[in-house]
């Protein structure tokens, strides 16, 4: 078990190194003589080689070794960096990823040979020099014959027979046939013995099962591949054992295998599957693996531990004070506990924050590849990679960001010749920027491409019947149009972005994170898409309001203003619009909307909600206080109730619902349709 843990740690570390190397390669591509980068790559490969050797990943060792040699030669100025080497390096990295992930099981021998030859070609080595002399040949499935005849004294030696049998049972492909020795049985001794057909890619694994009883077992390879997949073999075996055990089974099976081995054509299937693997690998470069572990500074852990011990001390002091009925002391301790828990909350939430760089780096490779496919030249720059963001948000940002970036490459950036004609530099620029304000994190994707064409958008919207011809629209309202479902200004569906997400889906997924999407654009100069996100998903700053005893929390970031109001004296326009500072706002009375009951009071509160492009007003009975709410899920049963982001437990243990301001207006008519 411990070994598995270590190995997982190893995989994580190697993956980190691979990611770093990938970033370095991208740098190297722009700066081909940078000796620091080359040395760094060389060093990383050396590390991978060493670590993989420790875990017996021999293929990985060889690839890393050759990779390392390439960069050693570059370092010593024996060869120089070129496009070929960079591309080959990316390819090798991809193979390393798969090798490590699949424990070297998922790559065919042939592919590896090809890669090794390519690498050798670069460094001009004719003969292979195996880095680990005793390395066994690559693993291949083998069907083994095992005869296990434990001596009668096995229990006295403290050996658990059941343990061995359990291990055998755990093998993936096997037939286990138990027999009994009559003469021994009559003597009242352990008479069981087993004949086993087992398939494994490593004889060692089988030998390890019998590690304490090596003299009582016989392991013989029968045939290559998995003979248990061959029904004839299984029939043959079953016929053999039908009449009990005989010592000639082994020889009969061996000759059966030799006879059938001639017909087998393993080569073909191998090639098929390698083709499939190639495809899966192509997909793999386009997915973000998510974050299943977070690095924490040990100082942070110490802090947490300190806070926890303070809580425990506080708790026992509190018990004491309660026993003594010392109200003054209870009050004192309670205040202290309040501070401590708040600190603990903050510290714990901070643990979930990771730098957004992880995500940015994942896109560098994507941009490079997409640009290559499309024959466009693109410089990809990132800024603010150190911005900390909740790990859950990062995971859910990958897909929307990917699609925005794809849109920029596909529709935004012009082909090089067109750019030159327009007087722009040949290389397009895509910038990915992150920055943070007090409560929000902004992620901006800028490109210097074509930008949006308001006339084209309007024409399309008229065609789709979204607006009337001649309807006056502000530029904000025009951009709002491209968020309508299935709206696309590009005439054709391209392989890259056409079948991906539309802007409406992008916005939807960002809103699920309680964020918003804004677009700015200048025709011919480029476009920028800004994602505004809360800095952490789990805590929201809110205002607590209530009607008829039911508590609601409204995110502060969406509240424009609050006012006293008398619901009986509203001069509503066309039934449900409230004139407010020269604007008409849709009005929602929470009492009716949520069906809360109770009588309308004369003195209620108006809360104006701002969604960026839209505003509306809500009426509640009372405004209480500001609450920094820890968001709790309402669970699956109530997931349909999406007026709420979730609920939160208040200081007195009661529950308040956190309103999702976007969902409330879902059914109100969209301003363009009125």
């Amino acid at each position, binding site marked *: 078990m411990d070994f598995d843990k270590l190995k997982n740690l190893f995989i994580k570390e190697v993956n980190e190194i691979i990611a770093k190397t990938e970033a370095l390669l991208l740098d190297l591509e722009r700066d081909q003589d940078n000796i620091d980068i080359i040395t760094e790559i060389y060093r990383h490969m050396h590390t991978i080689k060493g670590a993989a050797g420790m875990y017996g990943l021999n293929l990985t060792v060889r690839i890393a070794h050759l990779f390392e040699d390439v960069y050693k030669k570059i370092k010593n100025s024996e060869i120089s960096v070129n496009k070929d080497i960079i591309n080959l390096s990316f390819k090798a990295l991809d193979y390393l990823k798969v090798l490590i992930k699949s424990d070297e099981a998922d790559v065919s021998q042939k592919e590896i040979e090809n890669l090794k030859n390519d690498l050798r070609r670069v460094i001009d080595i004719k003969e292979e020099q195996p880095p680990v002399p005793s390395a066994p040949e690559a693993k291949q499935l083998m069907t083994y014959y095992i005869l296990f005849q434990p001596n009668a004294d096995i229990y006295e030696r403290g050996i658990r027979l059941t343990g061995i049998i359990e291990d055998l049972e755990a093998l993936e492909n096997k037939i286990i046939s138990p027999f009994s020795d009559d003469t021994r049985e009559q003597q009242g001794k352990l008479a069981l013995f087993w004949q086993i057909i087992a398939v494994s890619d490593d004889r060692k694994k089988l030998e390890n099962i019998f590690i304490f009883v090596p003299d009582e077992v016989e392991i013989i390879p029968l045939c290559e591949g998995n003979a248990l997949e061959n029904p004839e073999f299984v029939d043959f075996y079953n016929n053999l054992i039908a009449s009990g055990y005989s010592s000639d089974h082994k020889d009969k099976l061996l000759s059966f295998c030799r006879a059938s081995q001639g017909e087998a054509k393993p080569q073909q299937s191998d090639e098929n599957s390698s083709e499939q693997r190639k495809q899966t690998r192509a997909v793999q470069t386009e997915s973000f693996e998510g974050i299943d572990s977070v690095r924490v500074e040990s100082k942070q852990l110490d802090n947490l531990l300190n806070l926890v011990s303070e809580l425990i001390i506080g708790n026992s002091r509190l018990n004491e004070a309660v026993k003594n009925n010392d109200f003054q002391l209870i009050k004192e301790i309670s205040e202290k506990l309040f501070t401590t828990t708040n600190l603990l909350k903050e510290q714990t939430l901070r643990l979930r924050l990771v730098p957004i760089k992880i995500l940015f780096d994942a896109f560098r490779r994507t941009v490079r590849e997409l640009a290559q496919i499309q024959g466009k030249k693109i410089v990809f720059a990132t800024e603010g990679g150190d911005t900390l963001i909740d790990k859950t948000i990062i995971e859910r940002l990958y897909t929307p960001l990917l699609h925005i970036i794809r849109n920029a490459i596909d529709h935004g950036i012009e082909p090089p010749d067109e750019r030159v004609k327009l007087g722009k530099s040949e290389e397009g620029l895509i910038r990915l920027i992150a920055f943070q304000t007090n409560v929000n994190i902004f992620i901006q994707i800028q490109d210097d491409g074509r930008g949006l064409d308001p006339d084209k958008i309007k024409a399309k919207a008229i065609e789709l019947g979204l607006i009337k011809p001649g309807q006056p629209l502000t530029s904000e309202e025009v951009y709002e149009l491209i968020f309508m479902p299935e709206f696309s200004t590009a005439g054709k569906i391209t392989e890259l972005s056409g079948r991906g997400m539309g802007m409406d889906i992008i916005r939807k997924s960002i809103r699920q994170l309680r964020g918003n999407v804004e677009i700015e654009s200048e025709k011919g100069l480029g476009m920028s898409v800004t994602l505004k996100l809360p800095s952490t998903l789990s805590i929201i700053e809110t205002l607590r309001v209530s009607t008829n005893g*039911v508590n609601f929390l409204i995110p502060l970031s969406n509240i424009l203003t609050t006012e006293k109001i008398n619901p009986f004296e509203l001069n509503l326009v066309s039934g449900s619009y409230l004139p407010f500072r020269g604007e008409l706002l849709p009005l929602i009375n929470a009492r009716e909307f949520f069906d*809360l009951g109770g009588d309308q009071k004369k003195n209620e509160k108006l809360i104006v909600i701002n969604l960026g492009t839209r505003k509306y007003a809500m009426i509640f009975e009372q405004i209480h206080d500001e609450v920094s709410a820890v968001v*709790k899920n*309402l*669970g699956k049963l109530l997931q349909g*109730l999406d*007026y709420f982001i*979730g609920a939160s437990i208040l200081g007195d243990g009661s*529950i308040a619902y956190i309103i999702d301001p976007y969902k409330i207006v879902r*059914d109100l008519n969209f301003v363009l349709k009125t």
Partner: protein
Amino acid sequence: MDKHKFVYFQLWEEYFAIDVDKIIEVMEMPKMAKLPKTPDFVMGVTNFRGEIIPVIDLRKKFMLPQEEIFSKRKYVIVIEYKSADYQNKIGVVVDRIIDVIEVEQYDITHFPELGSRYNPEFIFGVIHYDDKFILVLDIEKILEAAEVEILKNLDLTQTDG
């Protein structure tokens, strides 16, 4: 061989049982918050060990009479159930907890589908015990149906508004 333990309880004048394996806790009626825009049988939500869980009223779900036949004390059984991909917890309000009983698998008989006030899908079987017929609830099925009903209710209120 195959014994199962059940919590055996009363709702109005009828007897029911739920498999203990599905139960996390039985507690006295906790403080509850009303939940807007939900069907009648959803009593609200409550704070259970720092998690917010919905509480449903089985009497209302089964459309049993609302008259109280006991003193006001009621109990909530907290149930954990698995749906497609994750674990859910939910509280179920009952009138009275009677006992925990141990029953052989073969003592749970088939529920006659005809002439019952209950949807036979919700009843896993019947235990004849203590001269009473105890209906074993298929709690997952009930909660699945409740989920659908909550969604439906939501659609209605939306078109109304």
